[in-house]
């Protein structure tokens, strides 16, 4: 057990190598801030080591020391490695294997590192579906009732109740402060929740501003009237057939209904649950109309007011709506059976002679196949159908009598056929890669294919770093180049192993591979020629030439 004061980042770096030798450690800190920093870093480092293996724990520690990475950077890199398998494999092979340093590896991937930071979530958050429940927190002792109003709730209130929004814009900050406004609003909501219409009316009579909240919302009523006028009469109500609006009072909603008939003076203070519900649903389905920061209440209110006004203006100016509607009505109201026959606007397709297509194509198709002298000659003479069918029937009965012959084919002929076919098939290796249908890589076994592709990507990576350090001007570059050259020369024997294994496929039909190997090694040999020349200048080492050894078959 160790107890340490952790003043700086360098110390943490040195610590990480010790940490992953195993064992448990206890740290003491001066302040909470220090502890939090350390905790984050240790968590990131543990995750990092958990993936890449504990065997080479010194190397990452050394790398980290060089760079002074922030924890965010580390986490970012770890996340990138986690997401991309290929990247992780390369990282493991090169950085943990000591061929490239961490800095070099990520130097060519700056774009990847930058990219992620700027990703913003593309999804927009919708409005909450809860109706703001009027269940305030009340502690049983005192007479106080507390309402919680978050900016989200305020946004929703403004969207659902235009009268409140208008009142806010009018009263605040002229007549009353925001706090007072919301207190009054809360009082109104509380009164509504008690369902005491008489009391509501009484309070409204006293306080003019309160009355605004307690009365029915005129703006809403007007809006509802407008919407009803614009309903599309061609709407198919088939889906609603199952719903019973006649026999179920209040659409099945349970409500405590005060059965006393009230004076008409109290009517304006009555609130209907179904109205509230409909308005709430309409607002939620519409979604977020304004995209304003919710912090500033005034700007939210103004933005919503502007949107509503714009909508109104659009409606008024949209005279086309009436025309569209009447068009649609007349179209849907047609009964098809009663319509007369309509003339088609198009002329029917009439192809005079489909044989033209055939002739145009026939000429070219047969040229590459050449003249197959198979000894089959066509004798063009006129045969009567009776004769033709007769001879066919005779031949069939001949088989029925004699049955299958033994052997079915003369063995010599069969052998000739087989060798001919073998020759044909083995000659196709010269044509590999010419047909767009086939892919050489796909004809290899899956494991081999993946291995070859991985070798290819790792060689790409090594070559990238190799050529980027040319011209070699410093000692550091020289050592780097030597390191890379060694790594590259190690790939050749690995590939040899594959070819030896595949050689053991003795099927004569499997002739595709040597050509593939030849093609593949050409990729290497092109680079390796340059490599060989350059490196032999530096180090005087001769490189093995792969293609010779592999193209044996």
């Amino acid at each position, binding site marked *: 057990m160790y107890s340490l004061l952790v003043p700086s980042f360098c110390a943490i770096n040195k610590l990480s190598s010790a940490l992953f030798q195993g064992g448990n450690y206890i740290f003491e800190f001066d302040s909470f801030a220090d502890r939090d920093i350390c905790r984050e870093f240790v968590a990131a480092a543990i995750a990092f080591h958990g993936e890449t293996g504990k065997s080479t724990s010194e190397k990452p520690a050394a790398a980290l020391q060089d760079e002074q990475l922030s924890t965010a950077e580390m986490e970012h890199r770890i996340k990138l490695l986690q997401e991309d398998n290929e990247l992780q494999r390369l990282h493991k092979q090169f950085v943990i294997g000591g061929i490239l340093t961490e800095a070099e590896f990520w130097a060519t991937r700056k774009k990847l590192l930058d990219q992620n930071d700027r990703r913003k979530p593309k999804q927009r958050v919708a409005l909450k579906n809860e109706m703001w429940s009027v269940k305030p927190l009340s502690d049983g002792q005192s007479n106080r009732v507390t309402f919680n109003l978050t900016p989200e709730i305020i946004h929703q209130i403004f969207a659902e109740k235009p009268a409140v929004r208008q009142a806010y814009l009018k009263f605040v900050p002229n007549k009353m402060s925001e706090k007072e406004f919301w207190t009054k609003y809360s009082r109104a909501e509380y009164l509504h929740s008690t369902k005491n219409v008489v009391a509501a009316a009484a309070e409204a009579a006293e306080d003019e501003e309160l009355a605004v909240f307690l009365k029915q919302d005129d703006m809403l009523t007007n809006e509802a009237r407008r919407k009803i006028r614009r309903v599309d009469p061609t709407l198919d109500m088939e889906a609603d057939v199952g719903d019973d609006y006649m026999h179920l009072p209040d659409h099945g909603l349970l409500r405590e209904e005060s059965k006393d008939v009230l004076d008409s003076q109290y009517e304006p203070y009555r609130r209907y649950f179904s109205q509230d519900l409909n308005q709430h649903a309409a607002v939620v389905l519409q979604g977020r109309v304004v995209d304003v920061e919710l912090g500033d209440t005034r700007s939210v209110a103004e933005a919503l007011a502007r949107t509503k006004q714009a909508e109104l203006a659009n409606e008024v100016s949209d005279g086309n709506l009436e025309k569209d509607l009447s068009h649609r009505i007349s179209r849907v109201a047609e009964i098809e059976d009663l319509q007369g026959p309509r003339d088609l606007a198009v002329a029917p*397709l*009439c*192809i*005079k002679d*489909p*044989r*033209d*297509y*055939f*002739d*145009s*194509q*026939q*000429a*070219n*198709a047969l*040229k*590459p196949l050449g003249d197959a002298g*198979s*000894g*089959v*000659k*066509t004798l063009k*003479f*006129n*045969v*009567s*159908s009776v004769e*033709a*069918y007769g*001879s*066919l*029937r005779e031949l*069939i*009965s001949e088989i*029925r009598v*004699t*049955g*299958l012959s033994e052997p*079915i*084919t*003369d063995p010599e*002929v*069969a052998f*000739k*056929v*087989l060798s*001919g*076919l073998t020759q*044909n*098939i083995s000659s*196709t290796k010269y*044509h590999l890669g*010419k047909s767009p*249908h086939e892919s050489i890589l796909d*004809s290899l076994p899956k494991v081999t294919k993946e291995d070859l592709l991985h070798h290819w990507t790792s060689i790409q990576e090594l070559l990238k770093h190799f050529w980027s350090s040319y011209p070699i001007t410093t000692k550091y570059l020289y050592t780097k180049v030597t390191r890379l050259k060694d790594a590259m020369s190690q790939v050749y024997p690995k590939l040899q192993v594959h070819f030896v294994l595949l050689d053991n496929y003795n*099927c004569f*039909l*499997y*002739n595709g591979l040597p050509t593939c190997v030849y093609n593949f090694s050409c990729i290497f040999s092109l680079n390796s020629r340059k490599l060989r020349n350059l490196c032999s200048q530096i180090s005087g080492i001769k490189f093995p030439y792969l293609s010779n050894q592999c193209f044996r078959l």
Partner: protein
Amino acid sequence: MYLHQVPTNFFDIFPDDVSLLMVLIDTNPFFWNSINTSLSFSKFISNVLAFLNSILLLNQLNQVVVIATGYNSCDYIFDSSALQNHNQKGESLLQKLEEFVDKDESLCRDDSVDGPGFSLLSGSLSMALCYIQKVFRSGPLHPRPRILCLHGSPDGPGQYVAIMNAIFSAQRSMVPIDSCIIGAQHSAFLQQASYITSGIYLKPQLLDGLFQYLTTVFATDLHSRSFLQLPKPVGVDFRAACFCHKNTIDMGYICSVCLSIFCKHHKKCSTCGSVFGQAQTQDSSTPDRKRKTSVDN
């Protein structure tokens, strides 16, 4: 369109190489009468029978269906899954073949025919594809189908559209069409068919050894084709030729209604009769101008 679904444990229940082989044999009497080779119809049939037996021996669940392509009609003459008595396969096939030939003769309206005549390949291809569709819809477990055409008659020009439609339908259902040409000349139709559907096209040199060709090349099931090399033709030239002169062209005019190709601008399409609009004038001056400005800049 209903696509056949393969359940995740398909390969546990059905091994990979179960195949349904549809064999279309050419029974055009005028063709068989007009060739002069060592391969008579009886020898041909006996080779095919031996081949069918070997297919059925490869796997207990293999199925074979034979369709005869006649001069006037086509018909199914053998279905291995419908047989009650397995020892009578050959007999029942031959019996049905004889009945088919009789029926075909009765439908014949020509008294005599010049040369080999044309067999109804489009009809038998369609019948094969219909059978395959039925198999697809029979449930999630079904063998993998392929079509083998043993064809010898020359290509009938009037069947072009129908055959191309059948080929595209086979391509969509991923059914390979293999072709074995036993006639004198190559068949452009079947070459196209095999190319488009990734099947094998072969014209045997030694027809005596037809059985050997069939078992070496055409007996491979679809699973094995992923790692076995089979003979492939060198390359196919499917370039279009113009309808007016039959010259091969690379650029030309196409009627947007019937897709016929012309090398020169015509006022009216000769195939479907639709009237063409104004031809686009060749703007050879504009590209030069563009090139010049880019050089200047």
